[in-house]
């Protein structure tokens, strides 16, 4: 890139999945002067929030063929599974396979171990297990201050801090956190959210031998759909209405699904056929369409787009049928917390208020409420000092199409960049490996040529 100074030394803040995937792409370069420093506060690299679960029931929501860490080598994860004897005899790359997330964490760990071994003599990779506190631009690059009082310098820094760990709302607790103490197995619990995180919570409760009723509440009470083996339809950018108001686009998309269904095509193949264009569609929408999408359409989109393994869906559906899980479309309007927690829920359609007593509320709503209140000190301090600003919807940081963060005054940083979920205001669907690896490959070309 013209105008950018030397970019041979790069600090990646965050050593979860997106940080490791970026490091792996950078280190494919033959440049002997390259220096990559990966900083992670957790004891293990490559896990983040998403892949730190040890529960075998917590499987990936994307089939193995889509989970390679490398954009240009989609079979990488598949071959690793095969080499490790982790696939059944009859598994082919074409049969969907949803690996446990702990297995995926191991894949990323081994990938990083291999890189570390390979780069030991070159000195191109350095791993630091410490929390990063802040990033500051300096005359020659950037300085990252660490919680142990030291700091690291480089030409530029890339934020790969992943999903924001916002504190649980009100009286709710996060599944697996310290506040998530032992429960009476027959007690009733409430889950805020009915999406994939709720499903994870249900599976974890099952594992613990919990038997009580689970009341799952969200605005619409919608459960994500199951995957099915299919063939995404082929679309070209010339077919897709861009830059229109949201209602126009949604009308077009519904018609497209209807026409395809008439021809015997599963709706999933239409939703998946749109995937290569999702970022482009998002980026071309006027601000009003983006806002409306997040407010009104995203819940509907998510359950069709972000699906779960068929086996998991069958288990959850059975739990709904048997009354183990009760899905409620509504919102929590009051909480009275004592020994037990009494919750008032207002139903979405009838507006009727129902009061239920539960032993615990789990927060699985999974939505970034406001990035400027992020629990991540690096992100917060960048926003506080005006070096970064939230995107217009405040779901991430405002970044350029080249992943450079944008300051409060609109200046585009040449030294601080971001990848992964933090960039969703600009890239929309950038939570999953298939999208993150493409972003990392592009950023690598941009930085190292």
């Amino acid at each position, binding site marked *: 890139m013209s105008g950018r100074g030397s970019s041979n030394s790069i600090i990646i803040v965050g050593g979860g999945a997106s940080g490791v995937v970026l490091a792996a792409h950078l280190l494919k370069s033959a440049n002997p002067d390259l220096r990559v420093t990966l900083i992670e506060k957790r004891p293990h690299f490559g896990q983040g929030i998403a892949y730190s679960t040890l529960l075998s029931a917590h499987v990936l929501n994307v089939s193995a063929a889509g989970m390679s860490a490398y954009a240009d080598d989609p079979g990488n994860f598949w071959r690793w599974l095969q080499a490790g004897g982790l696939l059944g005899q009859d598994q082919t790359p074409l049969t969907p396979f949803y690996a446990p997330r702990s297995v995926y964490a191991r894949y990323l760990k081994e990938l990083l171990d291999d890189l570390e071994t390979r780069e030991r003599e070159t000195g191109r990779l350095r791993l630091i297990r410490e929390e990063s506190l802040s990033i500051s631009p300096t005359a020659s690059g950037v300085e990252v201050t660490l919680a142990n009082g030291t700091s690291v310098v480089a030409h530029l820094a890339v934020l790969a801090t992943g999903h924001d760990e916002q504190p649980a709302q009100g009286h709710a607790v996060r599944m697996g956190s310290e506040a998530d103490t032992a429960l009476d197995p027959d007690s009733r619990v409430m889950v805020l959210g009915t999406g994939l995180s709720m499903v994870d919570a249900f599976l974890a409760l099952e594992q613990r031998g919990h038997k009580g009723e689970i009341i799952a509440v969200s605005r619409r009470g919608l459960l994500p759909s199951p995957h099915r083996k299919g063939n995404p*339809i*082929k*679309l*070209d*950018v*010339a*077919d*897709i*209405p*861009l*830059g*229109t*108001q*949201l*209602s*126009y686009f949604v009308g077009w998309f519904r018609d*497209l699904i209807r026409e395809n269904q008439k021809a015997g095509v599963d709706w999933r193949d239409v939703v998946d056929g749109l995937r290569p264009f999702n970022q482009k569609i998002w980026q*071309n929408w*006027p601000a*009003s*369409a983006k806002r409306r999408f997040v407010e009104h359409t995203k819940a509907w989109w998510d359950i069709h787009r972000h699906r779960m393994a068929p086996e998991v869906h069958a288990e959850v559906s059975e739990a709904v049928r048997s009354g183990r899980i009760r899905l409620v479309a509504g919102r929590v309007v009051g909480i009275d917390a004592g020994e037990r927690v009494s919750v008032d829920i207002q139903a979405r359609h009838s507006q009727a208020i129902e009061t239920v007593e539960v032993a615990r509320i789990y927060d699985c709503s999974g939505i970034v409420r406001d990035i400027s209140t992020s629990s991540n000190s690096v992100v917060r301090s960048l926003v506080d000092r005006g070096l970064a600003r939230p995107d217009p919807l405040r779901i991430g940081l405002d970044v350029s199409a080249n992943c450079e963060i944008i300051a409060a005054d609109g200046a585009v940083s040449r030294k601080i960049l971001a990848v992964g979920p933090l960039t969703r205001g600009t890239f929309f669907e950038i939570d999953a490996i298939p999208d993150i690896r493409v972003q990392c490959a592009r950023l690598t070309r941009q930085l190292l040529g």
Partner: protein
Amino acid sequence: MLTKKGKYGLKALVHLAGMPAGQLAFVNDIATANTIPKKFLDAILGELRNAGFVQSRKGKDGGYRLARPADEIRVGHVVRVLDGPLAPIPCASRTQYQRCEDCNEATCQVRHLMLEVRQAIAEVLDQRSLAEMRDIGLDELPVATKIQA
């Protein structure tokens, strides 16, 4: 292929892009200035409103204006709304595909090349904004007239 509908729609939008920001234009004025049949223009503007490119106000002082700044509206986006998927011939479209009666699509070299052409059309039209199209007019039209003369 750009239909009359697409062409008229673009002319109307360029007309609106030339108005002072926020000011409404009468449908009659747009029709007269660009020699577009008034009824056809009504229908076209209605579709552009549904897609969110223009806003309208009813009544005696009513009219149309752009819903967004002219540099934020891409020409290709408008053409897709008025004429459907960008395609030089009907067999070179995925969503509005129409098989040609008289040839075999698998072996038709014309179709193959036209699929490439549609990508090129999208690239050109999606790069250009209404503001750019409006400004082309001012600088280059006199030159074109001179050459003709």
